[in-house]
């Protein structure tokens, strides 16, 4: 949910569907492959309709590059509806750019002004190595989930769904955490490259629900250990992650994770 304040700040420009065209100056991180050095390269994007999304603008730049026989800018993107979590780059120093609660694919060019310079960089974190240009490897997130971010129920023989009662408000809180799209912006925003918000969101969702309680302690211990093993940093409580999360997941999820972790460790649970 976007709050009114953020809405005013983030999407205040009530331009209509009647689009303008603008020119923007891009400085884009180009890196040919994982183990090679990269650098910022300048591009001018002309005749950009303000109705375009940010990624559609990059599509246009890439079309031009390809027509000139040059290698287009590599970036991940898929659903372009802000739900798959594939896309994301650091735009003018901010993961996913200037709009609160907005993934890169849902950022529109009406947010930028004619002649503006825009820097575009990949997520930077030891645990997210750059593969090429703006595309990074986020498989560390999958390994964190594989370390216990699930409920151990095999197919077959599940009880009737309505036998598990979940109070409405609890369910809503769980859903707030479950909304995470694993884009990695939280890691990119954090000066420590911590993955606490991502990990905390899944731990919170599963800890709130009545299902899967027998494995609740083991889950948090294993997931937190995996998170550290992947090379993500520590949390120093600055809230940068929450500020850039396209799903506006709050850092109370981190507090919940730490409570869960402490509780489990005090209970003597080891992975």
């Amino acid at each position: 949910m976007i709050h009114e304040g953020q809405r005013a700040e983030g999407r205040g420009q009530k331009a209509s569907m009647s689009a303008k065209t603008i020119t923007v100056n891009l400085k884009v991180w180009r890196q040919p492959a994982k183990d090679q050095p990269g650098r910022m390269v300048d591009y001018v994007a002309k005749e950009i309709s303000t109705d375009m999304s940010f990624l559609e603008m990059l599509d246009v730049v890439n079309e031009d590059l390809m027509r000139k026989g040059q290698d287009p800018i590599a970036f991940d993107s898929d659903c372009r509806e802000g739900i798959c979590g594939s896309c994301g780059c650091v735009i003018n120093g901010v993961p996913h750019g200037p709009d609160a609660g907005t993934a890169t694919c849902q950022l529109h060019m009406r947010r930028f002004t004619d002649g503006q310079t825009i820097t575009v960089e990949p997520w930077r974190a030891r645990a997210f190595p750059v593969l090429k240009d703006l595309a990074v490897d986020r498989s560390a997130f999958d390994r964190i989930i594989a370390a216990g971010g699930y409920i151990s129920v095999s197919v077959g023989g599940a009880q009737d769904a309505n036998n598990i009662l979940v109070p409405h408000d609890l369910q809503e809180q769980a859903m707030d955490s479950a909304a995470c799209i694993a884009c990695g912006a939280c890691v990119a925003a954090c000066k420590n490259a911590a993955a606490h918000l991502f990990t905390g969101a899944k731990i919170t969702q599963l800890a709130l629900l009545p299902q899967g309680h027998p494995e609740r302690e083991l889950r948090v211990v294993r997931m937190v250990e995996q998170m550290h093993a992947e090379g993500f940093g520590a949390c120093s409580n600055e809230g940068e992650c929450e500020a850039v999360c396209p799903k506006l997941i709050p850092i109370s999820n981190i507090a919940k994770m730490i409570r869960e972790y402490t509780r489990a460790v005090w209970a003597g649970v080891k992975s």
Partner: protein
Amino acid sequence: MTLDGKIPAGPLPEKWERRKFENKLVNPANRRKYEIIIVGTGLAGASAAAALGEQGYRVKAFFIHDSPRRAHSIAAQGGINAAKNYRNDGDSIYRLFYDTVKGGDYRSREANVYRLAQLSVDIIDQCVATGVPFAREYGGLLDNRSFGGAQVSRTFYARGQTGQQLLLGAYQSMLRQVDAGNVTLYSRREMLDLVVVDGQARGIITRNLITGELERNEGQAVLLCTGGYGNVYYLSTNAINSNVTAAWRAHKRGALFANPCFTQIHPTCIPVSGDHQSKLTLMSESLRNDARVWVPKNKGDKRAPDQIPEPDRDYYLERRYPSFGNLVPRDVASRAAKERADEGYGVGETGLSVYLDFKEAIERLGIEIIKARYGNLFEMYERITAEDPYKVPMRIYPAIHYTMGGLWVDYNLQSTIPGFFVLGEANFSDHGANRLGASALMQGLADGYFIAPYTVANYVAAATLPKLSTDHPAFQEAAVNSQARIDRILNVKGKRTMRQFHRELGRIMWDYVGMARNESGLRTAVDNIRTLRDEFWKDVTVPGEKNNMNPALDYAGRVADYMEFAELLALDALHRNESCGGHFREEFQTPDGEARRDDDHYSYVAAWEFTGVGAQPVLHKEPLEFQEVHPSQRSYK
């Protein structure tokens, strides 16, 4: 070739039970000896990987994304149907079955659909047990809503993110099997060919999208779960990377392609704003539960919507379909919007949109309730259009959304190639000529969690599957072929980008093979597709190399396959001289403009055999028999 649907004997409600009992079993200790290849990790693929892993099979899961959770199932908004009858409003397995067969315009297999309705109940139980946060009532019980043309409330949902939550549930269950060592993930891999040895599917060739390396993967069965082909229209609600490549290459290896002309146009999408547009965004049709669709009564009425008084508005769905009103099925709602726009009553700058108005609902229910129900959809709309739908009616227009056609499978979800199974949207089986809302998620999970684990096990138990090395000539040949195609694309070195070609192909498809089709248009489409395909191979430019990450090359390969597949789609539409579901032929309509089916001549599945690029494919027919539901004209009046 005779197409045997392998439908079990006996009355409908007992067929699946009977098939499960007939199936051969694999001893638990032997299961780890079987390697099962799964391509695609959306709802169907992830749930199949989880279920087969849980049983003890060794599963290799391949996907084009960086993480299995990116699959496009994640974008489904509205919900998932199940015949739970928690509302006590007259729902039952039989009614869900009946609605789905009727909604599919009598072009699906009764036995498959009945099984789907039966399994719908288990799906909800399974998903809740794995922690999917479905919406709840204050008493803690599951909430339901009515959806997409159903007269009962049988749709379970998780805000506007049901697909996301179901996919994450299946993904987590799959990762649990990764943790257990039963499933291995292969990220950023694209399937380029199916390897068939002695008539059996025994492996796939994949391209590692980071290194460019071609890889040979061997297994005892291959499950294709790669979704639909909506992006052949260029603009669709599909994700940018959704593609037909894996299915098409399998088709070229002998798997028949069924009913490709059954494509679904979703009525409530955000209209196109310009040439730069890379995709269309769907607004869940749950919006139609509370909104009213209208256009001005007078052509060219340029007044702002709030300046147009009630008598000057045409609530055309309510007018034409008084009993279903704004909740008519997708195909009917889409065609009605097109009809108004074609007649010159459309709104917006392009005239290619209609209003979806919440004013009355906001007055009746209050803004808070509307916000709770549709808040995230309103946000999304505003983000894209910069218009506030709480104040101004939304503007919507139909867009390609889902494809009912797909690779032909029998009741066991096995294609015409033994050992090659097709699940989810990639197959053709359950939705006939039109899919009802909240049924795609249901089918994906039914196929993956509950059907394939039984039928694949039966296959590996019964088949003779000799040991095989990836040096086998069949692997060699497939790898060489895949490499040759990549080299051919890179060597064209022309002037036009693959996106230009894709956009042009999309325009042909939308203009001539879109919401309304006719014979001469379809012939034009076939000609134009062939010409464009020739131009592609003479003039496409793909920069970069084959031996590293090259998204442009990946994309060009997919466009090349669309160029071939598009022709089959058009030919199928041309051969089907009737209107049914998503396939509307202008020559075949009733005097009041409704679809006119021809059950005497077209009550069959059209399964096409590949005979070469540009060559006439061979048609095989699987007759459809209706024992329970008697085909009638669908009426929503």
